[in-house]
C-alpha cells in the first residue's frame, strides 16, 4: 500500500470512528489494556496510537488506567495462565456494557500452542468480541479494529435493559 493510500484510508477510518464515538459515548470512550505475555511490540504500537501521527484523543477515545472507567479491554499476548487472575479481575471490574478486543496474532492462537503455561488463545479465558490480527497490527489496523469494536459496543448498549421487570404474580 502506498503512503498516500494509507493516509487516505486512515483519514476515512478516523472520521467514521470519530462520528461513531461522538454519537454513542459523547466523545468519551475509555480503553484499558492488559498484557498477557506479549513480546512488547504490540504495546509499542498501542502507545503510538496516542502519538501525533494517530492521536486517538482527537477521536474521543482515551486510555484509562482504571478498569472501572473502561468501556473496552484490549488484550495482547497469548494468554499466559499466570496472568489469569489479573486479567479476570480487570475484566470483572469493568462496568457493563463492555467489550474485549484481542490484539495481534498471539491471542488469536497464531504463535503459541496451548500447554500448561499458556492458554494459547484469549477466547479460552474471556469472551472475545473483536480480533485485530497482525504481528504486530500497525496503528492503522488498530484504528480499524477499534472502529469495529465501537460498532459492537453500540449493539450492546442497545440491548441493555435499564428497568428490572418484576416477576409476575
Amino acid at each position, binding site marked *: 500500500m502506498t503512503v498516500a493510500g494509507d493516509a487516505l484510508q486512515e483519514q476515512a477510518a478516523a472520521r467514521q470512528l470519530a462520528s461513531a464515538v461522538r454519537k454513542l459515548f459523547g466523545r468519551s470512550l475509555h480503553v484499558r489494556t492488559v498484557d498477557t*505475555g506479549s*513480546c512488547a511490540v504490540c504495546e509499542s504500537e*498501542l502507545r503510538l496510537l496516542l502519538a501525533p501521527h494517530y492521536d486517538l484523543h482527537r477521536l474521543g477515545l482515551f486510555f*484509562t488506567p482504571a478498569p472501572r472507567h473502561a468501556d473496552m479491554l484490549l488484550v495482547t499476548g497469548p494468554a*499466559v495462565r499466570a496472568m489469569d487472575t489479573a*486479567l479476570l479481575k480487570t475484566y470483572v471490574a469493568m462496568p457493563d456494557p463492555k467489550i474485549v478486543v484481542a490484539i495481534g496474532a498471539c491471542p488469536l492462537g497464531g504463535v503459541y500452542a496451548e500447554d500448561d503455561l*499458556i492458554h494459547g488463545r484469549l477466547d479460552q479465558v474471556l469472551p472475545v468480541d473483536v480480533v485485530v490480527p497482525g504481528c*504486530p497490527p500497525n496503528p492503522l489496523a488498530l484504528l480499524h479494529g477499534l472502529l469495529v469494536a465501537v460498532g459492537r459496543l453500540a449493539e450492546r448498549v442497545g440491548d441493555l435493559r435499564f428497568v428490572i421487570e418484576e416477576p409476575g404474580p
Partner: protein
Amino acid sequence: MPSGPGREAVAVSSGDDRPFYGAAVVRCPDGQAAAARVRQFGEHFGARVADLYAAMEEELVTLHLVMALDAEGGYVDLTWPVSGEQYPAISEILPAAFVEECEIFEQFGVRPADNKPLNRVAIPPRAEAHFPRLGPAPGHEGRHPRAPHYVAGEAFEFPFGPVRAVAQESLYIGLVTSGEEVIDLYLMQWHKHRGLERRLQGLPPERALFFVERMEGLSAVGNGWAFCRALEGCAGVQVPPPIERVRGIALELERLYNHAAAVAALAQATGLSVGQAQAEIVLEQLLRLNSVVFGHRYLFGVLALGGVHRAPEAGALRELLGSAVDGLRREIEALQSTNSFMDRLEACGIVSPEVAQRLAVVGPVARGSGQNRDARRDHPFGPYLDERVEVATRASGDVLSRLEVVATEAAESARLIGEFCRAGLRAQASSRPVHLPRSASALGWSESSRGESLVSILVDDNELSRVRLRPASVRNWRAFDDAARSRNVFTDVPIIEASFWLTVAGFAR
C-alpha cells in the same frame, strides 16, 4: 585464547567429541575444579560473567558458565557436570551469576551450596511438580521475593502491578516506602513466562528463529542474529560480507528506533508532553522507514538462517534516514536545554561503576556507568570486523549519563549504516540451507540496543536439544533495584525504567 599468567592452566581440555563453536571450551570434572577455574579467570583475566545455564546431558545436569574476556576478545564456556543436588556457588566468586543460579534451581532442581535463599524468576508460586520445566523439578519452592523485605516502623509496601499503566508490559513492582522515598524495591516477572527455551527444543531451526524473534520483539534483530550466528557456526555456513552488512543495517535501524522510543518514554516519565510528542514523531518516522526499507516496522523476518529474507531498499534508506536521525538529534538537544527535564535526570537512578562491574550489566546501562564494553567492538562479528565502532561512555551512572550515551550511539548508528551502504550490499534476498550436524555446541552473540545478547545451542542427533537465550534484559534488570534505591522518590521509578529501556518479555521469556 587469553594470554598472561596462568595460561597453561586454561588450555582447552579434550576428551569429549562434541565440537564447540564460538567460544573456547574448558571442561572440568566437577564443581570444585570449576570454581578454581572461575577464580583463575576472574583474577587473572578480569573475566565477566556473560551467562550461566544448565542442560541435561546424558541424564546429568551439566552447567555452562559463559565468561567474556573483553580485553582479549573471546568467550570461554566453562562446563562441568553436577552430581547430586548442589554445586559450589559461582555467585560467591562472581556475584553477577546469582540470577542464573535462581533460574537453574527453578528449571533443573539443583542449587548452589551456600544455603543462600534463591529468588523466584519465572515459575509462578505454587506451581505443581508437573509444571513444564527444562529438567527435574526442585524438591521445594524458591523463596517468595517478598520474604526478606522486612518492613518496620513507618515503611510499608506499595504493591504496583502486574497490570500497570496503559500499554505497559505486565510487571509487578513491590515498592517499599515510607511515603515518598523508595526504601526498597523488588520485581516479579513470572507473569510473562512463556517457556520459550523449552519450546525451542527439537524445533526445526527456521521455526526456532521465528520464536527467537518474538521472545523480545523490540530486539528481534539483536537476538535473532545471535541465534543465526550460533547455528551458522555449528553448521559451518559462511555468510558473505554483503549480506552481513544488510544484517548490520537492520541491527542499527533497530538500535535507532529503540533509542528514539527510550527518549520518548523519558519525556513521558518526566511529564513533558511536547517533548514526548516530538520524540514519538521521530519514532514513527523510524518505524515507517523500517517498513519501507525492510517491509516490517519492527524488522521481524529480515533475518534468515545463512542470510537475509529481505533486501533493503537502499534508495529509500538514503532518502529517509538523514531527516529522521537529525530529528532525533534535535529532539534530544531540545530536551537537554530544558531545565525541568535535566533536573529530573541528574543524580537520578544511579548505578555506580562498582555495581555495574559487580552485576556485569551490559549495553547503555553499563556504558553510562563507565564500563567501556560493546560486543560490536570487543567481540567483532559480521560487518563490525571491518568497521570499528566508536563506543561512548559516561562515568556518573545516572539517568542523564544513559541519555547521553544513547544520543551518541544514535549518531554512531547512522554513521555505521552509511559505511555499510558504501561498502556494498546484496541487492536480493539470499539465504542458505542450514543443516545441523549430528552433535555440536555453539555460542552466538550480537549487540542489541539493550546490550550484548547471547544464544547458546546444543545439537544432538541433528536436532536442537537445548537452546539457551540470554537477551540483555536478563543482565540489566539486575541493576534496576540498585538504581531505584539510590535515594530516589516514587516518581523517579518510571524515569529510571525508561532510561534502562528493558523488556519484561526478554527477562521472563
